[in-house]
Structures are given as C-alpha cells and as structure tokens.
C-alpha cells in the first residue's frame, strides 16, 4: 500500500489541539512546550495521522494525551525503546517523544544513551524542570547541588548531569536547548529537530512553578542567551561541548550541535530498505523468502 496522499488543506496549530485539556498546574512551563509543539507540527505540514507522540510517566509525559496525533502513554523511563520499535514498524511516521528530566535522564538514562548511539530518527523533547513534578517534588538528576527538595531536606549532595554535553558525546546528531518562556524559539528548535534525519534532542527549561522555587521563569529569563547571538558553529563538536558546559550567569540556548552525515537507524536497517513501511507491506516475509529459509534449514 502506498503512502496516503494528502488532499487536506495545510494544517494549522489548532488542528493539533487535543480534545482533552491539560491538567497541569496553571502557569506550568509545559503549557508553552505543548503550544510550541502544535505549531512545530503545523509548520512541518504533515497530517495528524502521520505523527506519533509517545510519553513516559510524569507531568510532562502526559503531553501525548493533549495533542491530536496518534499517541501512547507508556512507562516511566521507557519511551525511547518503544519509540524505536514504532519507528521500525513504520518509518514513515514522524515520531515525537516527550518526557521529563526524571523520566529521561534518571530512570530512562540507559535508553537515552543507547537510542542516541543508534541515531534513531525521532524528536525527543525533555521538559527539564530540575525536579520530579508528578511525585510532588523530589530531587531529579538535573537538580543543582545544594537544592532543598522533599527528598533532600538538607540540600542535594549529588552533582547534576549535563544532558546537552552527554547527548553530543553519546551520538545524538541534533542537540538543542530552549526555554519554555520563548515559544517561538522552541517551536523553531522542535521543527528543525523533526526535519533532521536522526536523533534530535531538544532539552527545554520548563519551570515547575509548584515544586521548584529555584529554577523559576525569572531565573531562566535572566540567564538564557541564544547561541546565535554568541556566534556558534553547530557543526563544530568541540565548540558544542564547550558551550554545553557553560552554566552560570549566562546559560546558552539554541542549536548546539548537528551532524547531518550519519545515517539514522531506519536507513541502515536492511529489512526496511525496500518496500516502504513494513506495516503497509503485503507480507512480512514473502513466500519466496520463506521457501529460501526452509531450504537453508535442510
């Protein structure tokens, strides 16, 4: 079966608005990310059924329930393998994964590293609020040292991990960071991430106004600085890592790194080579292939 031809008018952000309204706390950073993602999908111009949005567990991971695409709300930390399978099953889909810092960098840390290494073609949006929001306020892998949370009443003694530098080193081919307070900027970053053939990470500062009194909207507003203004070449890995390490009065946002030379997994997988998405093929294994296997066995 051929890919479905589109006869619909150019979609708008509104077409992607889901029927369920988010139950996030009023003022949560995740609202900005959802709006920006709707706009990014509209900008990419594909129809609703061409998108699959997969979330883990967390406030941020609920996003697939609020956007009008195919969706799956999965398990805490396990989005990326499931997304990998979905992409293998139908590599025509635009696969979007959403989650939090706990979901992606904590419990899902192993999958994070390996999915980047495989360069699976998907957009990974992490709403990084430096806290466990849904479980009402424990330290996360990106909480700063010294931060007081429910689980660290005397201050966090662990160092945070650096998702941007980690992603570049682990093999992601598109690594960006944004701030939910600048919807236009993150729309562009997510749109570019979907256009990119390969693993695209967009880590977004998305303040939890209820449980994180440190990393607030004003905190980020004062500090974020666009890499475009700093003057940065995203094809320069060394420079990208250096920019990724910067954290202080100024925190760089924008596209840190992009490598367009590496093929994504679906292009390297021989089975996907011919015949379009496997879900739409006539046969998983053709009769000839089946006979050939039987012959080999004898």
């Amino acid at each position, binding site marked *: 079966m051929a890919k479905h031809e589109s006869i619909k008018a150019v979609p708008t952000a509104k077409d992607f608005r889901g029927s369920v309204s988010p139950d996030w706390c009023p003022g949560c950073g995740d609202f900005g990310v959802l709006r920006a993602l709707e706009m990014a999908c509209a900008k990419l111009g594909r129809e609703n059924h061409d998108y699959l949005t997969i979330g883990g567990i967390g406030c941020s991971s609920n996003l697939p329930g609020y956007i009008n695409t195919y969706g799956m709300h999965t398990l805490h930390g396990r989005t990326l*393998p499931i997304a990998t399978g979905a992409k293998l099953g139908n590599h025509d889909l635009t696969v979007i994964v959403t989650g939090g810092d706990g979901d992606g960098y904590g419990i899902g840390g192993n999958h994070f590293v390996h999915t980047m290494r495989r360069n699976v073609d998907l957009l990974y949006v992490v709403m990084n609020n430096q806290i466990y929001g849904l479980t009402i306020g424990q330290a996360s892998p990106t909480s700063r040292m010294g931060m007081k949370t429910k689980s660290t009443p005397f201050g966090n003694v662990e160092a945070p991990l650096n998702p941007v530098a980690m992603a570049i080193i682990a093999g992601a081919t598109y690594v960006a960071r944004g701030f939910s307070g600048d919807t236009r900027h993150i729309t562009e970053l997510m749109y570019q991430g979907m256009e990119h053939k390969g693993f695209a990470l967009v880590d977004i500062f998305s303040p939890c106004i209820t449980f994180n009194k440190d990393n607030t909207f004003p905190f980020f507003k004062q500090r974020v600085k666009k890499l475009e203004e700093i003057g940065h070449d995203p094809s320069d890995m060394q420079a990208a890592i250096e920019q990724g390490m910067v954290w202080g009065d100024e925190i760089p946002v924008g596209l840190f790194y992009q490598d367009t030379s590496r093929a994504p997994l679906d292009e390297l997988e021989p089975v996907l080579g011919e015949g379009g998405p496997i879900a739409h093929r006539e046969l998983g294994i053709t009769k000839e292939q089946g006979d050939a*296997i039987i012959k080999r066995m004898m």
Partner: protein
Amino acid sequence: MTKQVQTIKEVTILFAGDSGDGSQTIGTVVTDASAIAGNDVSTLPDYPAEIRAPAGSLAGISGFQLRLSSHAIHTPGDTCDVLVVMNPAALKVNIDRLKPNGILIVNTDNFARRNLRLAGYERNPLEDGSLPRFQVFPVELTRLTRSALEDTGLSQREMDRCKNFFALGMVCWLYNRPVDYTIRWIKEKYARRPQYVEANTLAFKGGIAYCDMTEQFATSYEVKPAKFPPGTYRNIEGNMATALGLVAASQKSGLTLVYGSYPITPASNILHELAKYRNFGVITMQMEDEIASVGVAIGAAFSGALGVTGSSGPGIALKAEAINLAVMVELPLVICSIQRVGPSTGMPTKTEQADLLQMLYGRNGESPLPVIAASRPSDCFETVYEACQIAVKYMTPVIFMSDLYIAFGAEPWRIPKVSDLPPIPVTFRTDSEGFHPYLRDEKTLGRPWAVPGTPGLEHRIGGLEKENITGHVSYDPENHEGMIRLRAEKVARIADDIPPTEILGESEGELLVLGWGGTYGAIRTAVEHKLEEGASVSHVHLRYLNPLPKDLGDILKRFGKVLIPELNLGQLLQLVRARYLLEAIGLNKVQGQPFHVFEIESKIDELLKR
C-alpha cells in the same frame, strides 16, 4: 579379520571432556547423521557449570548424551551404554551414568598424575581395579590422532584439537553410523581452512580404521531406522524450532517479525538464529537491556509488526512492567520465556521449571494473560506459532514457555509445509466510521488494531485505566472493575479454541500423571512402560496453562489419584489444587537435571502400591 555385526534396538552414547574437547560438536554431528539415517534420536547436551573453568577440572566438564533407536523414544535415556571420556574429570563426573557392563572408551593420554589430581583421584581408576563392572577400552587417543595427522604439517596443538573426530570415528565404526554425512559436515564447517578439512577427515577415518584393525573390538552394532510417517525430517533443537515457528508465523500472518532481545542463557540462540534471517525480512534488535527489548517489540506491535521478545527468568522479571503495559494497551506481543535454574542467577546452564507462577502472576494488579508451554524440542515450533495466533486474534500479550532442557535438546522433526499451517488472519482497522479504540469484537473481545499512519483513526493508548469503548483515561470505579473483568473474560475465552485434551491410556482409572513443559519425555516413557505392564495409569500433558483446557476438570475427576511431576516444588500442583479443589500429589525435583524415567516409574508404583 572378520568382525561380527549385531543388530540392537537402541543405544545411548555419552561423550564427555573439557569444554574445549569438542564433545558438543561430535555429539551434534552424529545426532544429525543418525536422524538423516532415519533413527529416532533424543539428545541431552550438558554444558559445564563454569565456561572458563580450568582445563581438566570437574567444573569444566561438558557432556553430550545421545540416544538413537529403531523405535519411537521420548527421552535421551536415564543411563548410557557407551561413555567416551577425554580425561579423568569427565570419567568422575559421568561414570555413574554408565550401565553395568557398558562400554567405556578412555583417552589414556590424559591420565597423567596431574590430570588425576585435578579430578580428585588419588590413584588411577584405570589401574586400581575400581571399574570392574564395565568393558573398559583404553585408547591412546591423543597419540593415535597425532600419528594419523603426521603428514599434515599442523602444529601439535592443532592436531590435538582433532582428537574428538578420532573418537567419533570409533563410535561410528562401533555403531555403524553413516560416514558420508560427517565428512560432508567437516568440509562445510572448515570450508575456509582446507588444512582443517583434511586433518579432521583424517582423524575421523583414523578412528574407523583403528577399530577395524585392533583386536580390541570384535563386534559392531547396528540400529535400524525407525518407522516415521512419510515426510521430510531434520534434527532440530528446541530454540531452533522456536525461531522457525516465529518465522513461519510471520509468513502466515503477513506481519514483519521484530524480535527484541538481550543475551541470556538459554534464550540467546533464538536471537542468533533469527539474526541470520535479516535478508529474509526479519528484524532483530539486540537492545541495551531486557526492558528495552520488550519495549521495542511493543512499539513495533503498535505500528503493525509481529512484536516478539525473548529471555529467561531474570530477564522476564525486568520485562514484567512492560508486559503489563501490553496487557493494558491490548496489543499483540509474544514473550518467549526459556527457563533455567533460579532464583537469581541460579545455575544458568541447568534446567528447571520454576518460573510458571512468575509467568502467570509476576505482575502488579489483575493482569491475566495466556501462557502456553512447549513439551518437546520439535513442539516448540507449533507452540510458539500458536502463541502468535492467539496474540493476534485476541490482541493480547502471550507468554510462550520453554526450558533449557528442550531448548538445547534435539529430536527429529518433520518439516511442515507452510501451506499446511493454520492461517493467521490479520486485519488492520482502516474505517473511521464508528471507530473506537476499545470497542471490542463480540466473539473474541479483542479490540481493533489501528496502526499509526492510518488517516482518521488518531487515538491514544496507554497504561492508565481506560474507559470502556472510548479508551479515554478513566478513574471511574465501576468502569475499572468492568475493565478488569473484561480483560479477564477475554483471556478466559481463549479456552474456546483449545482442542479436546489428549489422554494417553484410558480416560479413567486409578492414576493420572499430569505434566507440563519439558518433563513430557520422561513422563510419557514411564507411563508407556507401566501401561505395558498392565497398570491403570494415564498421561495428560498440558500445553495450555492459562487458560486451562475446559475439559481438564472432568478428566481429573475420573481418576482415583492425580500425580503431578514437576522440576519445581509444586507450582502446577498449587494451581490444580486451588482450581479444582482436588488433592493432587506432587513429585518434585530441583537439581538442575531433568527427571529420570525410573524416578517417575517408581512413584507410579508407589501410588499404585505395586
């Protein structure tokens, strides 16, 4: 010198040596040759406890037991007629399995003081008269192999690696095994190393010639072919049959197979086998862990592939949360669970059946799913095929169980014609008219399979409780109970597809032996023997563990006693007692070894007071 040939009904041969001595190789070769020659065969590879154990130590002994016969057999035999040992440790580990007056072939070149000490012998058992019950044939296997290979120009080390084929030559002479197959096998195996083809062939022929010439052996034996229904046969191990069953299901369903796995004994070689079929449209993913392996299969299933994952107990434990997700989102998924010894890492190279309750219940919440188990190596093909059928028909994860004993054991298998296999019809929903993600099929209660990419069917699934029909997230108390009952009812309805339970022996009587999984061979053989003796005993072997066959309750009631032999402390026993309020009796063994036939026979005798 003319030598005698005597016809015998069957023989059991056990090769044992260091893991580097090639016992598994020659065992497999002579098994395949015998299967091709038309014998019934059954094998028991016994892998060393420690892969890197020092040479000559007890922990490093690898064994391969093969039984071949001219009549139908179901087990590799409790004891052996011939034992071939490469060193003292192999002798020590296996001598108790040799029958009285059995043939013991010993490589005497490895019986130096050092080897004896490593095996814990104070004196040489070949010289101290401790083996009077056996026909001992001391052979200088290493020296003879070296002299046969004198002109090959190989190093001594390389020559010594060929001595297993010398031993195989001897066995082939003794039991008149076909030689062509072995020679062809050597040629293919070492195709890229012609000097090894020559050397191994020379060693093999050397072994044959040695027996011909020496006075040691006066008689050779012959085992006539068994009578099988017509068809094309090959010898097959359980895991190979599992892999092929999945491939066949992929072909029949038209779904591309996506197999996610993470290496673990004894499941790994399903991954190895399927990986060979990449050019045939099979996708295998070796993921970063077991959680990712089941994840990739679930994602692929959502997208419209045949998602399958495989592991053993420890890995299935890691997958439990994701299997439960599949229960909730009601997508087809097949989980291959190849049991080994637990708990924890247990004894990874040994067999057990102690994961049944884990498969049935090892998830949070009310989480029913079908569980079916293969009983023999060749049965893995049909059983895993059926797991795929059920998964797709009922939109549910299905657990297919096997165990190390049948996963690595082999027997002849009649290769089915793909056209004879039952169909696996699949329909992806495309019509958006009246579509609801949880609007079920009236008969099966399966929900529609609507794959992402289909216009107009955009919907969201997930692990939160679903509202009936719409699939929206719901915390409604009544709805939750309703959904729990619906999911349970869906799995219960699978029993409608289960054929009437087969009974060996009378359908009522004094004693029923009820088994499941890899104990089939031992139970079947024991019951057959007792039936021949006129005992009132029958055998039922379960493939369907959840749901249980509808007729099982009635069958059980028709027998005075029910005996359930298991390689665990009584897991099916618990189920049967709870379900049928019946006082069944367990026969339980947890030693990492399969049942011996005599163990089951004596329990039958005890219960029948014979």
